[in-house]
């Protein structure tokens, strides 16, 4: 085939082919540059290597009708000694927008100051915007130590 007997439509088809060839090549190389950048932007998921049980407090540290925030893995949790002299523990991350809750001795409730969300001492969301209850942990007293463990479901 020589260029002289090439019809204009052939020329057009060839041009079209080259445009697609070049265009897809450029787009593909751009994508190959973008892909690692996007992957880089998203941090790798962190597995919480903290054990399933943590020493939350010592016996006698909390007075009756008070609470304490302690660190459980990479999130805060709350231990409460109820007025009935019973220990209960929950995650301290409010189920609404993630603020850290606190125990209100005057209300005998768990309270989130960010949007006035309230939970009862079973962790149930009873007032305000929180959509879900706080996940409950198991509390075990061994000698002078109070251990908090993840419950099978949480």
């Amino acid at each position, binding site marked *: 085939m020589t260029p002289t007997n090439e019809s204009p439509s052939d020329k057009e088809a060839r041009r079209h082919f080259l445009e697609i060839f070049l265009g897809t090549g450029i787009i593909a190389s751009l994508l190959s540059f973008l892909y690692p950048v996007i992957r880089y*932007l*998203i*941090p790798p998921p*962190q597995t919480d290597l903290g054990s399933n049980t943590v020493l939350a407090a010592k016996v006698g540290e909390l007075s009756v009708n008070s609470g304490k*925030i*302690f*660190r459980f893995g*990479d*999130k*805060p949790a709350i231990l409460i000694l109820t007025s009935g002299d019973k220990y209960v523990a929950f995650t*301290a991350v409010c189920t*609404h*927008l*993630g*603020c*850290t*809750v*606190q125990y209100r001795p005057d209300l005998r409730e768990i309270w*989130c*100051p*960010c*949007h006035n969300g309230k939970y009862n001492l079973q962790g149930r969301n009873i007032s*305000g*915007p*929180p*959509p879900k209850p706080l996940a409950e942990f198991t509390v075990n007293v061994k000698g002078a130590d109070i251990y908090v463990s993840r419950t099978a479901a949480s």
Partner: protein
Amino acid sequence: MSPGAQIRNWLDDRFGWDDLIAFLKHKTVPLHRYSYWYYLGGITLFLFSLQVVTGILLLLYYRPTPSDAFESVQYIMTQARFGWLIRSIHSWGANLMIFTAFAHMFSVAFLKSYRKPRELTWLSGMVLLFLVLGFGFSGYLLPWNTLAFFATTVGTSLVGQVPLVGHWLLIFLRGGQDVTGATLGRFFAFHVALLPGLATAFILVHLVLIQRFGMSVPPRVEPEWKAKPPEQREIRFFPNFLLRELMGWYLALGVLGSLAALKPWELGTKADPFASAPAGIKPEWYFMFMFETLKLLPAKMWFMTGESLGVIAFGIAALLWTLLPFFDHERQGRSGRWAAGVVVFALAYVVALTAYGYMVMAK
């Protein structure tokens, strides 16, 4: 020939210096009873350049890690000479700049300056407004104090409520599941590198467009303006308008200096991710109207949470507001009345909910 004239000749020889000066001399600004609204954009630009200067100065001492950030700002506030002044100017300046940017936007909206051919000027201005809000949100976290820590927790959780991409955005912003040192590092990078780069580019676009189209004459005063003799219709940009503008800048500097000197910006207490959130968590005032709206929505609406619906509604409202020039483009007639109504409503809504938010807080 004097050395000054020699340099001038050298420049003129290479890129037509005299043409540039002649161009500046020919630029004019319309003169009418709403002319003073023209100064707001320039004042915002001035405050932005102050932010750049004070921001660079703060960078010399600031360290963006959870163990050092609070202490380094404390050092700036208490040890570095005039550090308190630099940081207070940066914090107050940020707030003033956001205020003047909003005022500039509403003045443009009221005077209908966004109409053809200035649609792109409005669009670039809206991008700049979003960038400025991004500056505010990212800068707020940098001192790593308790209020900022929980405001960022709440703010990024709200971003997480966006349908489909919300969780992805939340991980991207926080650099993980929670607000941690990774978040601080990212917000620092956004605040000092990404956003300044984008803002500089969009400021250039905005200025080139303003240069290209000139200042608009509001439709309301156009007949009255046209009836005036030509020599009373406009003033020269250089030096007349620029000198007046400089007075505006000087006034802004005076307000800023007084605020910074008389009421230095507070630092608060260092953030502890494993402590309860304190009472009185609130966003910066310019996010208050959104914060308050979301608080007033019921927890559950339709099939989603109130927050999700609120976030979607604000997203749509922001998009429609950005596209305002494409809905109101009539040069003649009264068809622009509804647009004026929308602008009044938007302003009233923002002001009312902001005021309401602070009244609820004060209780």
